[in-house]
């Protein structure tokens, strides 16, 4: 089920420059959400009609809360960052499919790049088995480090080398001679492309969370498609809807170009 709720912000703080962490009281959504799903946030400013899709970072089903961690990327996220405890936001969710949690792997990679790191925190909490978490940052402005360390072994990479391996997430994997049976990732497109190739090379199962501009967020408008290897079930034209068929795809389903 999907719900539209008026969520109440129970906590918001800036956890790194321009990166905000927000806990939302949103009972129905929190109860059903799984890691890898996202929710649509709506602006109070009515000049902005479209939802802002944001991945669920952590889920507190007991308290009925979800945590979002987002970067200020434009006017909408800037608006959200100005709200505080007690303010409300219209939200719709949980949306999309989430990462597969039912496969039994002994050891998995959870790889997050930049603002793709947050969903890895919630995934690490729910995924069984040993977790090797690789988080790629731009620089020393790291965030969610504690949350990630709690549920797995954390390896850092940074573009400027100020923390962890200097380079990208794959550099960190290689530098630390890491191996696993499967790979779960979220981050910028070039990173996902490289990870897909790496997983194929290593014979790992690979699940990637994609992004695209969205309008409906629920699968109705066909704005957010990605190319798929096979004809899709919905329109039979090798286009999958990221909001509905994804955002998490098995890497071999999709054509990353």
């Amino acid at each position, binding site marked *: 089920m999907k719900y539209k709720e008026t969520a109440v912000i129970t906590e918001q703080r800036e956890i790194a420059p321009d990166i905000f962490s927000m806990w939302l009281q949103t009972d129905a959504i929190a109860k059903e959400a799984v890691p890898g799903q996202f929710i649509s946030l709506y602006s109070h400013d009515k000049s902005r*009609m479209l939802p802002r899709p944001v991945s669920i970072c952590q889920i507190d089903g007991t308290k009925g809360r979800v945590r979002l961690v987002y970067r200020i990327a434009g006017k909408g996220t800037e608006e959200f960052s100005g709200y505080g405890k007690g303010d409300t936001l219209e939200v719709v969710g949980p949306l999309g499919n989430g990462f597969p949690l039912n496969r039994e792997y002994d050891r998995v990679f959870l790889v997050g790049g930049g603002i793709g790191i947050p969903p890895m925190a919630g995934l690490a909490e729910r995924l069984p088995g040993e977790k090797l978490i690789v988080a790629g940052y731009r620089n020393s402005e790291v965030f969610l480090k504690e949350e990630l360390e709690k549920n797995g072994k954390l390896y850092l990479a940074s573009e400027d080398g100020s923390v962890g391996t200097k380079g990208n997430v794959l550099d960190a994997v290689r530098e630390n001679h890491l191996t696993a049976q499967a790979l779960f990732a979220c981050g910028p497109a070039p990173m996902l492309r490289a990870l897909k190739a790496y997983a194929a090379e290593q014979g790992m199962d690979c699940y990637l969370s994609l992004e695209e501009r969205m309008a409906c967020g629920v699968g109705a408008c066909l704005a957010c498609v990605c190319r798929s290897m096979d004809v899709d079930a919905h329109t039979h034209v090798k286009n999958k809807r990221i909001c509905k068929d994804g955002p998490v795809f098995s890497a071999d389903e999709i054509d990353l170009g």
Partner: protein
Amino acid sequence: MEFRTSVNLAGVELKNPVMTASGTFGSGAEYSEFYDLGALGAVVTKGVANVPWPGNPTPRIAETASGMLNAIGLQNPGIDVFIERDIPFLRRFDTKIIVNVCGKTIADYCEVVEKLSDQPVDMLEINVSCPNVKEGGIAFGQKPEALETVTREVKKYARQPVIMKLSPNVTDITEMARAAEAGGADVLSLINTLTGMKIDIHRRTFAIANQTGGLSGPAVKPVAVRMVYQAARAVSLPVIGMGGICNGEDAMEFILAGAAAVSVGTANFNNPYAAKETAEGIQAYMEKYQIGDIKDLIGAVHL
């Protein structure tokens, strides 16, 4: 007091004047997760062609002030899958089914219309005004003679009443409305999207891959109300009004301007309950002003 919200479009009785705008509501499946589609007068489907269309490259949409641009490019599974899957799905709800038809040539339109002729759908809406595909579509929607011709041809194959959907990208909407009427249209719907463009100034490129896209949402509502007003007075056909409707108050503007029914489009993206709430809002307006029959409000703006 009783409040009658039903309207009649070319013999088809809708329980209320609210429908969905083509392309914003799929074939209803996604929004049926939020509410019973029986709350609506009709569901208008995404445009369907004779064969599957892959649509345009992404990004396909961009947000604009109180609106959005889209260039989906009419991605659709083709009429055969549609008939097999979408019609049976929609038949489960107590609402009318209106199939939006797109094509590149007159023959394309006629092929789809013919395939639908023995199907349990209530009306057909012919999209001759999509600005987002290179061939066909918009060309028929911007020249009166072409519009009249395509209308006449389609009518030959149609068993259901035909709605011709007009483009707002014209100098004189009344000329287009009259052309559709002359071609034998049963109903008119307007407006489709206004052609627009957004530029990403940081990447110095177009915000959507197709360069231009169709502008929709509250931004266009004043243009839409004006055109509905003009079209409704130019012809004697019922008119379905749309363009930026978000709630009952917006819908009432169109109805007072002369629309016999209204469609909710972009607003669904802002609020999945928008179409249902629009129907409720119309009812609330009638109750507030104690108007017993919605028909008494159609075109009832004072001059």
